[in-house]
């Protein structure tokens, strides 16, 4: 029989501390839609998405109601579309992206990831087509998310592709200038991209994941913050006690995610994949990674101590989550997306959080320099330089890192930009040394894989 205090603490987590399931993401492999006739490919893709995901939203809502745990986002992660573009030209990429956009709208899902190319060592013709099509696709579609894997610990960093990514970002920003460069928010570039990540914009279905799978992103930071505040309201606590409290909370949060995920998968007759432990903030007050750090005593995020506090948080979340589930995967760390986290955006506005400190913080968490607004006139080589630095942290520390940079046309450092909704808003951040070191990027070639890539 359940104990009264346990029931009440669960009810409190669900009702007043933002406990929810952040994302139920259905992975769908669409490689069986390949063919030489792009119209037929598009028809098959539309059919496969609309038949596989037809009941996704309905089932998520039904299971969510049974437990009174809302499933905030229902999404799709497709196998890399670049594979369907082999042997095709640019117009095919646009058609394919539009077909996905239409199908995704039909099943009432907000985003589908998978406009993806894995180019850590080089590009195939299909991948070249996909990358060249990115500016137009990001402008012409609403629900399609893109990702590029530009580096890995096994391959090193493809600096040709990194250079190209800078130019692509500038082009996307210009094409979506009327939305403050919002198109860039739908493109993430990675080192060591995980094949089972349920979070946008970097979700895609890797090879070896089966034909369809359900992956889960657990609840956001609100529950952890409330748990810490409750602990600290009883008097000061040591960092060891704080880590224990985070672990305990992560355990419970992960359990809820796995419970919902397994049941959704069962109902949809699709295998259950992984639970991603990442703490993903939203712009809502009380749902912020920055506020967790504040509860731990970091009154100014970006100031001294911030990296250590974030490391403690990230590690404790993993330890609690790993005990709760045997299916942990994806990114599984704390996110620090500046525009999507009101507290981090404020820290950037007050100049406590600089781009350089953010980069340092991403060495101890996932996923990287995320949702960072940059001056619109930032040269492509400078964007590539920021990307290369971030990817190097991932490659040389054997972890996933990523960059989601938004050069906002017509804006300069300190200007405010608002995207609204989950994407939030914040200040344009300053870059030290804009335009410098472009020669390094223009060298091109490959930064070799690090020594620890040879593990056999």
């Amino acid at each position, binding site marked *: *029989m*359940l*104990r*009264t205090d*346990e*029931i*009440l*603490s*669960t*009810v409190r*987590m*669900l*009702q007043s501390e933002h406990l929810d399931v952040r994302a139920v993401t259905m992975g769908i492999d669409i490689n069986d839609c390949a063919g030489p006739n792009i119209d037929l490919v598009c028809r098959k893709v539309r059919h496969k998405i609309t038949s596989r995901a037809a009941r996704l939203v309905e089932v998520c809502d039904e299971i969510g*109601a*049974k*437990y*009174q*745990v809302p499933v905030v986002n229902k999404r799709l992660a497709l196998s890399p579309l670049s594979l369907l573009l082999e042997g095709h030209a640019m117009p095919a990429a646009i058609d394919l992206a539009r077909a996905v956009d239409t199908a995704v709208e039909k099943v009432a899902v907000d985003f589908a990831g998978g406009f993806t190319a894995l180019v850590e060592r080089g590009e195939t013709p299909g991948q070249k087509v996909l990358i060249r099509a990115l500016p137009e696709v990001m402008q012409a579609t609403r629900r399609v998310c893109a990702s590029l894997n530009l580096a890995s610990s096994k391959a090193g960093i493809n600096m040709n592709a990194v250079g190209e990514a800078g130019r692509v970002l500038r082009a996307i920003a210009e094409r979506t200038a009327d939305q403050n460069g919002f198109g860039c928010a739908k493109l993430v570039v990675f080192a060591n991209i995980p094949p089972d990540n349920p979070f946008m914009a970097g979700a895609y279905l890797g090879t070896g994941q089966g034909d369809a799978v359900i992956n889960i992103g657990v609840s956001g930071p609100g529950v952890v913050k409330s748990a810490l505040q409750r602990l600290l309201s009883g008097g000061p606590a040591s960092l060891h006690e704080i880590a224990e409290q985070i672990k305990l909370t992560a355990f*419970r949060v992960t*359990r*809820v995610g*796995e*419970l919902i995920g*397994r*049941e959704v998968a*069962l109902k949809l007759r699709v295998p259950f994949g992984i639970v991603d432990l990442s703490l993903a903030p939203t712009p809502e007050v009380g749902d912020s990674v920055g506020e967790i750090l504040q509860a731990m005593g970091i009154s100014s995020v970006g100031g001294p101590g911030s990296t250590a506090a974030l490391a403690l948080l990230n590690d404790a979340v993993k330890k609690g989550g790993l005990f709760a589930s045997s299916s942990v995967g994806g990114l599984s760390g704390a996110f620090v997306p500046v525009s999507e986290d009101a507290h981090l955006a404020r820290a950037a506005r007050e100049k406590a959080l600089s781009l350089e400190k953010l980069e340092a913080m991403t060495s101890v968490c996932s996923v990287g320099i995320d949702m960072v607004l940059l001056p619109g006139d930032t040269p492509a080589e400078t964007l590539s330089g920021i990307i290369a630095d971030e990817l190097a942290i991932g490659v040389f520390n054997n972890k996933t890192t990523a960059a989601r940079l938004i050069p906002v046309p017509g804006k300069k450092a300190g200007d405010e930009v608002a995207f609204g909704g989950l994407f939030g808003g914040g200040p344009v951040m300053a870059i030290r040394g804009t335009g410098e070191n472009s020669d390094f990027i223009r060298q091109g070639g490959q930064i070799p894989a690090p020594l620890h890539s040879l593990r056999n």
Partner: protein
Amino acid sequence: MPEYILSVVARDRSGIIAEISAALFELGGNILSATQSVLGDYFAMMILCATRAAVDPKDIRDKLGERVRSEFDLFVTERQPASIEPMETQTFVITLIGPDRPGILHALTSYLASKQINIDDLRCQTTEGEFLVICQVSVPNELDLSMLQADLEESGRELQFTAHMQHENVFIATNELRFGRAT
């Protein structure tokens, strides 16, 4: 073997269970299951007890009277087989929290009875003018869950109460090391 259901209520003190169990032991009884709690300084216990041979319930009462050294109320009867056809059900937890006043539990339980929802476990407490009800109920599978939830939330609002009805698995998942049974 015949089985008997006993319910004992007495002012709480130490030693009551020792005295009850001694009486049952001397009658050749074997306790199969028991629950006990204390509420408002009163002790209450329910016992399911089997005996080798049939015992007159009056003899059980007399034996307890010899052994238990304080006043008590006793109900005792021979256990009869269940008269209700078992239904396919799932266990849900209902929580109700709001300002204390008479009639809250009556409103909730009347509604549950009207839907043939059986209460398996119920706890209520009043703290600083706030009344809390937590009950675990067996909901027949044929009932529409979203309708029940909507009814409960609406009647909760009328009483200025927050009412929730959630499947027990979410409480098992967040509080125990095991997962609940998949449904």
